Every structure is written in structure tokens, then in C-alpha cells.
């Protein structure tokens, strides 16, 4: 069974959630889920020959070892993901303190009203 179909389904489920969610926190959660699906995709692509971890490789058959390069790159991707998420949560906290709402629609309404008032 092709495992990468799961990650494809996952990516577009999270994309759907991202563009239909009405609260900001939910959007941030879906950004993280999307990133996880991409990480899973690369691990599955590196896993097509075998699923043994690439540790102490001289004692096991080289055919069954998974690819170490995507794993190393995905470690970086996870760190970058959590950096992005923490900064976005902080920005959401700022917006929540200013507009006192977490809904995209409501916040947009309040923001446009503010702009008209200033003009």
C-alpha cells in the first residue's frame, strides 16, 4: 500500500481547515498540521527501501536502512516550525489584547470601522 497517499490526504485536509477556519488559533493549529504532513511525506519517501533506523549501519543489511538525509533535513524543519508557531501565537496575543476577539470576521469588521473613524 502506498503510504504517501495518507500524507497527501492530510495536506489537503489541513489546507481545507486553514481556509475555512474562522478563529485564528485554529488556523495556527492547521499551519502546524500542514507542516507535520510534509515532514511525514519526506520520511515515507526515504523509507521506501526499508524501515530500520540508520544507526550502527555496519551490523545490518544496507538494503533495509531508511534514508538518513530526509531525516536530517526534517529535524531542521521541525525546529523552524516551532519557531514560526511561537511567533504567531505571540502576534495573536497582541491582536487579542487590542481587538478582544479571536474571530477573523469580527476582527476584520472592527479593523475597518477603526479605519473609517480615523478618516
Amino acid at each position, binding site marked *: 500500500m502506498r503510504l504517501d497517499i495518507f500524507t*497527501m490526504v492530510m495536506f489537503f485536509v489541513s489546507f481545507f481547515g486553514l481556509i*475555512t477556519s474562522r478563529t485564528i488559533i485554529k488556523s495556527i*493549529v492547521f499551519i502546524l498540521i500542514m507542516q507535520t504532513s510534509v*515532514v511525514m511525506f519526506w520520511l515515507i519517501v526515504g523509507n521506501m527501501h526499508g524501515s530500520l533506523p540508520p544507526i550502527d549501519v555496519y551490523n545490518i543489511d544496507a538494503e533495509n536502512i531508511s534514508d*538518513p538525509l530526509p531525516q536530517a533535513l526534517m529535524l531542521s524543519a*521541525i*525546529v523552524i516550525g516551532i519557531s514560526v508557531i511561537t511567533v504567531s501565537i505571540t502576534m495573536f496575543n497582541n491582536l487579542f489584547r487590542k481587538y478582544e476577539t479571536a474571530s477573523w470576521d469580527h476582527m476584520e469588521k472592527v479593523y475597518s470601522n477603526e479605519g473609517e473613524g480615523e478618516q
Partner: protein
Amino acid sequence: MNIPITEIALSLWVVCAVLIVFTKKMYRIIITFGVFSLIGALSYLFLGSPDVAMAEAAVSAFVTIFFIVCIERYYKFGMGLEDEQAEEKVKFSAKSVGRILAPTGFCVGLFWLAMQHLPMDDAVTVLRDQYLARFMYDVGGMNAVASIVLGYRVYDTLFEALLLVVSVVAVAHVSWYDKAEMIDRRHSEIKNSGVARFTMRVVCPIIIIFGAYIIANGHLTAGGGFQGGLAIATFFICRYLVYDINDLPIAKVMRMEKLVFVNITILPVLAVFTGVTYFATYILPLTSDVYLVAMNILIGFKVACGFFVLFYRFVAIERW
């Protein structure tokens, strides 16, 4: 009988994400997200990548805490309930139907397009064979992932560390109360509980030893600087439950993190230019292991400092 455990885990994973799409309550979303991350980490383990699994598990613990801190105030203001009710009471009209159907069609179309270009089973693996055959002589160590992260692809690691520093600085400066004092206003008086104090006294040394073990053996087994640094940073969560936070030197820790980052950039550049990693392995087999252990310790120290600052920032300042 061969149990298709990876398929089962991945199916549960997709089910969790679909549940999150159709959940309205914020706390449920965060709890489901925690389950999702746990199943994801298990799947990484089944797919033969214990390093990524450890990183994902540790990261998702921290992210869950950050989200809960975020949501707690959201409910305290009473805004969350209003938003949820507004979301539940969507009227059935042409606009609402279009709002569901158009994204669905868009996503299904993109999915169909992506399915046309999936990689074949015989993905090119020249680099994999090259790395697996040579990493012990080129960089050293027993763990191929650690050797690639700290040897072949060390510049990626440098920029990743830089991004973490930038994120810590951004959280400290984008934050609402820029120069606010640390305020310790915990709901429950868990500080005075004898059970909590005793449990922390037992658990904290084990956490520290676990983190140190992961860091020191990162080049031999699964683990490394990032995972061990996160494990040590969880020690500060335990400390938050029991001790005071007013005497914490946050600014000093931030400065120390930047200094350690400078060391992290200097060490690999020196090692590459002097050939410690790539040529001295044949003459002195231990030097490359010294380089790997030193890099892992520096990265672990930096990550622990960074997440220390992030956690206290979120718990003591962002929360109120």
C-alpha cells in the same frame, strides 16, 4: 502474521486531523492536537527515524502548553464562547453553502493534481548509499542522522539555530508588555502541596540525567542536542510548579543563548577549515567524536536556554 501497524497509525492520524476540522470548542481542538502529535511521533518511529520522533514528541509538549496558555485568557474574557456560538449558528444560505463547497472543490482538485506527480517506488538513492557508506570515515559517530546534521549539512544547522534565536528575540520584543515584571499568579496553591514538592524532588534529577544522556550520546544512538535540550527545558516546567519565578535571570539567559550561538557558529567553521572533521579522522579517530560531542552539548545548551525563555515568557507575561 504481519500487522500493518504503520498503516493503522497513519489512518488514526488522518482521523484526528479530520476531527480537528469539525471541532468548534478550543480545548477539544488542543487536546485532539496533542493526540495527533503523539500518533505522528509513533509513526515516525515506525518509519525508522527515532531522532525525528523524539524531536516531534518534545516539541508537541511545548506547543500544547503554549496553546493552552493562549486559550486560557481567551476563555477568561468570555470571548471564546461567543465566537463558538456564532460559529455554530451559521445560517443555511447560498453564501454559506458556497463557503463550504468552493474550498472543498479547490482542495479536491489540488489533491487530484498532486496524485499525478507522486514519486515512484524507486526514488533515486545515490546520496543515501554515499552517505551510509562514508559517514563514519568522513564525520565519525555511529548515528548517520547526527553525522549529516553536524557534518555534511552543518550550514543548515547553523541557520536553524539562528532561526530559533530570532524567534526567541521576536517573542520577547513583539510581546505586549515589553518591559513588564514577571508576575506569579497561579490559580491553585500547588506551590504549598507536599505531594507536588516530593514528586518534583524525585522526578527532576531523572529528567536532567535523561537530557544529559541524550545529549552526550547523540552521536552514538538516537537523539542529539536539540532533543536533549528540549528534555532539559522540561525541567523548568517542573520548577515552575513548585518554586518562585521572581528571582529568575531571564535577561542573562537570553544573553547567554546569543553567546552560545556565536560559539556554535565558530566551532564548525574552525573544524572545517582546520580539517578536524574530514581529515584527522584517519590519524586520530577520537577527534571527530570530540567535535560531535562538543557541538551536541553547545546546541543542547542553546536550545534549553531558548525554551526556558519562551516558556517563562508565555507563562508569566503572555498569560496575563
